[in-house]
């Protein structure tokens, strides 16, 4: 995961070859064909499914251009939709709060341990996403030591839980997508010319002012990339809500999954997927525009 994210904000300034007109298309063709057939066409199918209605028999649908599917989807899953964005937002904020000092420490305070620490940030990623979530479930769960200790010192009452709460879901989301935040932050912090900070100090700015006026603005590309890379998967996730939450913490991903794979209501699920995707794209575009960063790819 590391390198892609590290370079997610990389600049590109090099003269491009213009002589060969056809070669780039030949190089692009196989990948583009793959992405068109297995990404764009499915999205088109999703759009077309979203306005279908039940035909004869379960799982068969006919195109009726029923746009009220979207209204039905929103009214029936409004709570989960809003909750998804709330949780994703909270997880993104927490991830930023945790990651920034971490990335800062690795970029500026780690000396010759820099590369090792960088590997350690990515390392938890190599242990399966699901295993990590299950591990949290068990650490915080009824059999775990944490809950017993918290009950023992009466921070939590005998009836209190840690798992099956909104807290656990947000904590799980924060944990699972943390490297997506830390790596772009590190990449942009690491690129900062240390002389900029020294210059700020020479001009009588104290450490805090230097941080506020030099470090933070220069690390903005990393902040933007990191928040996007955390927010997008968090908003669509349903594993954390499933394993760490309760029926009252269901997110939109849970609803889509259930509608697709259990209820077999394809149009409803497609409508919800599109709502999720379009909302995220609108948020992303508005955010990138406000934050004013360059090309992300």
């Amino acid at each position, binding site marked *: 995961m590391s390198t892609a994210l590290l370079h997610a904000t990389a600049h590109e300034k090099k*003269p491009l070859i213009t002589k060969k*007109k056809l070669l780039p298309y030949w190089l692009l063709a196989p990948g583009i064909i793959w992405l068109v057939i297995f990404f764009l066409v499915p999205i088109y199918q999703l759009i077309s499914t979203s306005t279908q209605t039940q035909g004869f028999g379960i799982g068969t649908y006919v195109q009726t251009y029923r746009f009220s599917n979207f209204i039905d989807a929103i009214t029936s899953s409004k709570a989960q939709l809003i909750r998804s964005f709330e949780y994703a937002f909270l997880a993104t904020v927490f991830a930023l709060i945790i990651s920034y000092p971490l990335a800062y420490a690795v970029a500026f305070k780690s000396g010759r341990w820099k590369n090792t620490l960088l590997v350690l940030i990515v390392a938890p990623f190599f242990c399966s996403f699901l295993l990590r979530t299950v591990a949290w479930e068990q650490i915080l769960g009824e059999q775990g030591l944490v809950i017993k200790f918290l009950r023992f010192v009466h921070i939590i009452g005998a009836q209190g839980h840690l798992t099956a709460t909104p807290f656990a879901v947000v904590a799980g989301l924060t944990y699972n997508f943390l490297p997506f935040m830390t790596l772009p932050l590190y990449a942009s912090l690491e690129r900062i010319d240390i002389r900029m900070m020294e210059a700020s100090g020479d001009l009588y700015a104290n450490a805090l002012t230097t941080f506020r006026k030099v470090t933070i603005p220069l690390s903005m590309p990393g902040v933007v990339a990191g928040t996007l890379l955390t927010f997008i998967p968090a908003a669509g996730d349903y594993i954390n809500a499933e394993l760490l939450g309760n029926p009252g913490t269901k997110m939109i991903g849970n609803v889509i999954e259930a509608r697709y794979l259990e209820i077999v209501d394809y149009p409803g699920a497609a409508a919800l997927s599109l709502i999720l995707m379009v909302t995220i794209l609108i948020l992303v575009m508005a955010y990138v525009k406000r934050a004013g960063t360059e090309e992300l790819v």
Partner: protein
Amino acid sequence: MNRATRWFSRNLIRIYAFVGFTYLFIPIIYTIAFSFNASTKSNLVWVGFTWNNWLNPCGAPDVCNALGNSLKIGVLATFFATILGTLMAFAMGRYAFKGRSIVNILIFLPMATPEIVMGASLLTMFISFGFNPGFWTIVIAHVMFCISFVVVTVKARIASLDPRLEQAAMDLYADERETFRRVTLPLVAPGIAAAALLAFSLSFDDFIITNFNSGDVNTFPKFVYISAQRGLPPQANVIGSSMFLIALIIVLVGQFVGRKRAGVR
């Protein structure tokens, strides 16, 4: 600001980083510790230490079948995604052409789309074309979402190359093909290797898209998800721990080799 507070603030961030790393590693340590648990069924309570799970990682039903599928899918998806993505990266990193920004958007979109949307839409398409989801639909899906990450990784490496190295090769009468084969490709190779490693770990770890497009084929994440409801066998921890350790070793060796090569240069 006096010296004492500066010392404190300087060490504050180190303390903070230490806490941060501890937080990152708690579930990993937990997973590794419980891979040595002598429990027979659900792996919730510490029973006692044993090597048995490590000596017999296939002891739990289905776990090795799922692991085998995940490895096969990972290798195939990595192979195709790395080839397709690297070709695209060369086009994007080297050539000016019309339609560049559209291609850029096409590469960016899969990374900006929630997995559940990609999984659901692919399943919709497979169903409407009468395709039964199974092993190959998983491979197809994994190649699809890995390509963009490969392109970004390899492209960054191409962009960071010193153009003078290739010019030097040309000056020394290497033709274009030879320059590419003997100078450009070896220089880009670490980027391609990193991209392949990334693609494999993305594929191996994917659950959401796989769950939609797998039919009744089991993969390791799917196995973990399903058995998490009843209690995970310690063998799952063994496999998770060994994947973690193997990946760590590969990355550390890669860094070591990279540093050595950089030192020689």
